[in-house]
């Protein structure tokens, strides 16, 4: 369960255990924090450059106060946005248990969505990677289509999407076998090999 407290999860059933806990790829947070850092450094850099160039911006005392308080407010806001980005990243979790998939998504400061899907209802799992960064850093989306009219689950920007998709398929298959929804004869070759062993 790594360093995360999973106490915010819906209660697990008897014999149900957590198999996979996923977050977005670390690069997503790193890129956001890099942008906030640049935004914080720009006014400080401008003020240093203008001072070095001999320009006297803070001529009057009122202007000095305005610049000081304005810069302070700006930096506090940047810091707050950076912290909110971390919270948003940290609280977006996708959990695969032996029985279901749980998607917990934090939308901004005041909105949170928790959705569940039973593994035996899963019909199709697709891994998707688009772009240069996802290809180089091996992250992408995993789409999980279930039976019925429910919207499909999406694990967004998770690391190693193909292996995650494979893992979800394997767990779903085991779950279906457990619930007698799938004959062991029809299961994947790997599962048959395991059963024969």
């Amino acid at each position, binding site marked *: 369960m790594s360093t995360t*407290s999973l106490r915010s999860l819906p209660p697990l059933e008897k014999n149900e255990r957590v198999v996979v806990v996923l977050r977005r790829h670390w690069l997503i947070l790193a890129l956001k924090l890099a942008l906030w850092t640049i935004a914080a450094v720009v006014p400080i850099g401008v003020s240093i450059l203008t001072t070095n160039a001999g320009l006297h911006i803070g001529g009057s005392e009122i202007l000095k106060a305005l610049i000081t308080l304005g810069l*302070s407010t700006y930096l*506090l*806001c940047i*810091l707050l946005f950076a912290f*909110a980005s971390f919270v948003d990243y*940290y609280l977006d979790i996708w959990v695969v248990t032996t029985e279901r998939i749980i998607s917990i998504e934090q939308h901004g400061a005041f909105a949170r969505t928790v959705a569940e899907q039973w593994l035996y209802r899963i019909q199709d799992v697709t891994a998707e990677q688009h772009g240069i960064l996802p290809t180089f850093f091996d992250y992408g989306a995993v789409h999980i289509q279930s039976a019925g009219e429910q919207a499909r689950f999406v694990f967004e920007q998770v690391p190693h999407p193909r292996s995650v998709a494979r893992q979800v398929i394997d767990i779903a298959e085991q779950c279906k076998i457990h619930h007698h929804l799938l004959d062991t004869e029809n299961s994947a070759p790997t599962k048959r090999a395991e059963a024969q062993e």
Partner: protein
Amino acid sequence: MISIVVLLYLYFGILAICLFFGAFNIYALFRFGASSVATTVTLLFFAAVAIILALTIVNIQQIDWTTHIDVIPTLSQTTL
């Protein structure tokens, strides 16, 4: 003319809003994902806020307020 008092009112207003959102984010972080990582990041956040506020206070103290002391009663009357 922008007065120091109005500036301070604005500053503390924005500071209060930032504190509210910061407090809510910390609440959400510990309510739904308390861990050593969350604690470390929150402490870093507090440290950064303390540094920014300390630098602001130091810079504000360096300003020569005596040259603008006449502004304050005028604005107080305006406010009243």
